[in-house]
């Protein structure tokens, strides 16, 4: 099962498991993790599931899409080279990414 490590801006660490096919956003929201808002539920409408992906463990993550790329230009927290919208990070069974959530999403 995919496993995601979430580190908040304040340093809180949560490790959550999901199912293959879940996104990093879905696993966070379903477990009520603060730090990922995701008002639009993953339809690329709100840019409130912004995360910074740590180098380790994300070789196999889906590539940055065109609409996602545009939407990352409008996030509340600054965009960095490792910025992604977590709704687009759909995981397979062996993925164990580590993401940081920004200070603010809205």
């Amino acid at each position: 099962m995919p496993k995601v490590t979430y580190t908040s801006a304040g340093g809180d660490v949560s490790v959550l498991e999901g199912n293959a096919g879940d996104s990093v956003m879905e696993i966070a929201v379903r477990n009520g993790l603060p730090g990922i808002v995701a008002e639009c539920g993953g339809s690329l409408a709100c840019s409130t599931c912004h995360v910074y992906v740590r180098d380790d463990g994300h070789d196999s993550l889906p590539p940055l899409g065109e609409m996602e790329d545009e939407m990352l230009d409008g996030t509340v927290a600054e965009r960095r080279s490792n910025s992604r919208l977590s709704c687009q990070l759909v995981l397979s069974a062996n993925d164990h990414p580590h993401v940081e959530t920004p200070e603010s999403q809205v």
Partner: protein
Amino acid sequence: MPENHGILIVGASQAGVQLASSLRELGYADPITIVGAETHAPYQRPPLSKAYLQGLVTAEALAFRTQDYYDKHAIDMVLNERISDIDKAPDGSGTATATSGRKFVFDRLALTTGARPRRLEIEGADLDGVLYLRNADDAEEMKARMADAGSVVVVGGGFIGLEAAASAQKLGKSVAVLEAAPRLVGRAVGEETSEFFLKAHRARGLDVSLNAKILRFVGDGGGHVSGVELADGRVVPADIVLVGIGVVPRTELAEALGLACGNGIMVDEFSLASDGTTVVAGDCAELPNPMPREGAPQRLRLESVNNAVEQARNAATTVTGGRVPYRMVPWFWSNQGDIKLQMAGLSAGYDQIVTRGSVEDEKFSFVYYRDEQVIAADCINSPVDFLAIKALLAQGLNVPVDRVGDAGTPLKKMMAELLSTS
């Protein structure tokens, strides 16, 4: 000491779940019970007309939270029970009774009852194959029937109708949209945006009829719908019909309780109903405009995820003893096939529209002004503009009407320049 019964949230909806989550985040320690009439744990509705109908996501993937979350946060989720009667004392406490006879005692009541589809009561309304789309069971039935249908008629050219029409098209169906008004999405967007959608959908092969006066649903003699008859004599053939002509807020319980109701259960800016204790959030509420300004309606009802979430948060603050006037920038989205519409603000009362970007390339924003101040935008495939304008409205900023059309310069940059020179 009397037993503590906590809050009863009627309606296992987006607003209901958000209210419960926000209460726990705010430190509310009393019992929380959510009662829902459906058999499914609370789930997202927007994908029902889009990804779900197209078979791209499963029902399980739409659930808001895991059962584990509800357990851990002591949120008692009661499904498959429809509250039909509520007795309430002047202090706000009382007992709700479900149609099964089960009783729920509460100290505080919340109504997040949502809305039901408006029905088209014409001849043939009860024919098999005349469908409505509001909940997961509706979507499941539509998906199943769509598999065997060749031709689909959608009655109503609003968001739900156009989203479902685009989904049916993707599944290879022949789709006709019948809209009674002279333009599409008339309740939600400006005339220019309506015009764009008409052209864009027709260019994609969707058969759209405006000013369509529907007389009756025609049956095949065996109790199943076979077409829709119009006043001009035309009969549009249909294996299934989806009626998407808006929703009616579920106010019955509130009315029975004697709460003031207009176009929804009336609340003040603290999400309180007229009894001063019951909180209300989401599609069922008629609320003071959360972004008040001259030329905009003073009270309204908002059918959106955004309002369900934000108003529920406001209600949670009220329940935990805070009093924060509800203010936010209303926003909406609609994905219709490959067309993404995002709207920020309310355009009512605008006196000028500026086009930013290219309508021909289907990548643009209509920016609405009143007295040279931005009040709203309809953004097509332009998420960056949408996010910038939503942020600008939230901060009370502006972009000059003579600059906004310069699509080569990001709005964020224009705003930064203006802030540094002012």
